[in-house]
């Protein structure tokens, strides 16, 4: 082997990887031998430095930056929370303004459709026709038939109403 060794071969030789031919060439080639010794020296210096020194951070430097970094993180988190809360609050469904007349109409329509028209009148109470007064004979007839027995009694009710309520109820039907 007469040609000089390439840097790759010399680096590997310095690291202990090489063929017998390459080692033989080193013995005959001064320039390759010089380069090889330089590589070996550098590699030993690197290895010695890695063995004898340590890049380990100290405990204080380990945790202090962590504490400092939590401040902007916490602030950003709080700001995000505020923005999310504000966005949700603004997105709440807002009812369109409804006039009183429209609302009354809606309620009236609901009552008219869903509830018996016999119970709720949709007309104004003041304009509604007043039913004609019933004559006393109607009440008398009902009393004779046992319908409304307690209507004309004294202020102190007799035990009849309390003792026999069922015939009255049955009789009124």
């Amino acid at each position, binding site marked *: 082997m007469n040609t000089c060794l390439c840097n790759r071969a010399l680096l590997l030789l310095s690291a202990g990887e090489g063929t017998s031919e390459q080692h033989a060439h080193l013995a005959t080639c001064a320039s390759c031998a010089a380069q090889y010794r330089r590589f070996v020296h550098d590699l030993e210096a690197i290895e010695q430095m890695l063995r*004898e020194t340590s890049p380990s951070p100290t405990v204080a430097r380990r945790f202090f930056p962590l504490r400092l970094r939590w401040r902007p993180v916490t602030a950003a988190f709080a700001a995000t929370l505020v923005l999310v809360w504000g966005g949700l609050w603004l997105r709440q469904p807002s009812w369109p303004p409804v006039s009183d007349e429209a609302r009354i109409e809606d309620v009236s329509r609901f009552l008219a459709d869903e509830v018996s028209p016999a119970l709720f009148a949709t007309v104004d109470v003041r304009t509604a026709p007043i039913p004609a007064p019933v004559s006393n004979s109607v009440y008398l007839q009902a009393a004779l038939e046992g319908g409304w027995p307690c209507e004309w009694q004294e202020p102190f009710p007799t035990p009849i109403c309390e003792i026999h309520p069922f015939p009255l109820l049955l009789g009124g039907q």
Partner: protein
Amino acid sequence: MHYARVFQLCRLLLVDRHEAEEVAQEVFLKLVKQCQSHSQILSWEAWLTRVAVNACRDRRRSAWWKWWREEHTEFQEAEFSSNRLTPEQQILSREQQERIWRLFRALSPRQREVFVLRRLEGLSSKEVAQVLGLTIGSVKRHLFHAIRHLRKGLGDC
């Protein structure tokens, strides 16, 4: 003796002394469990190396570790600096040390494993290949790339 070797291996693979201490303890806990299981292991040294490398890999894979390495890559002054350094090695300036440690950190995990096992732990290429599950050619390739990369820290390539 074995603990010091395992700790040194973990320290170099993780580039963090505190993490290395934890991982080395985990490795020896596994060793105790292995001893209790009465399993026959031919070479405890090789077993320790393999378990340590795998434990360091597991630690590197954890999310917390990734975050920590990305956030805290500052070089710290050597805690291991000792008077064992020869004057020749002490010529290396601190800036050079910083550069080399940064370059060492920048190595891929595989390149770092190969370099540490082959050059700093003194394993042969065949042993490295067995521990890492690689071919010998692959070990040499990773070793070459690692050395070439680290030499940049010395100011010449």
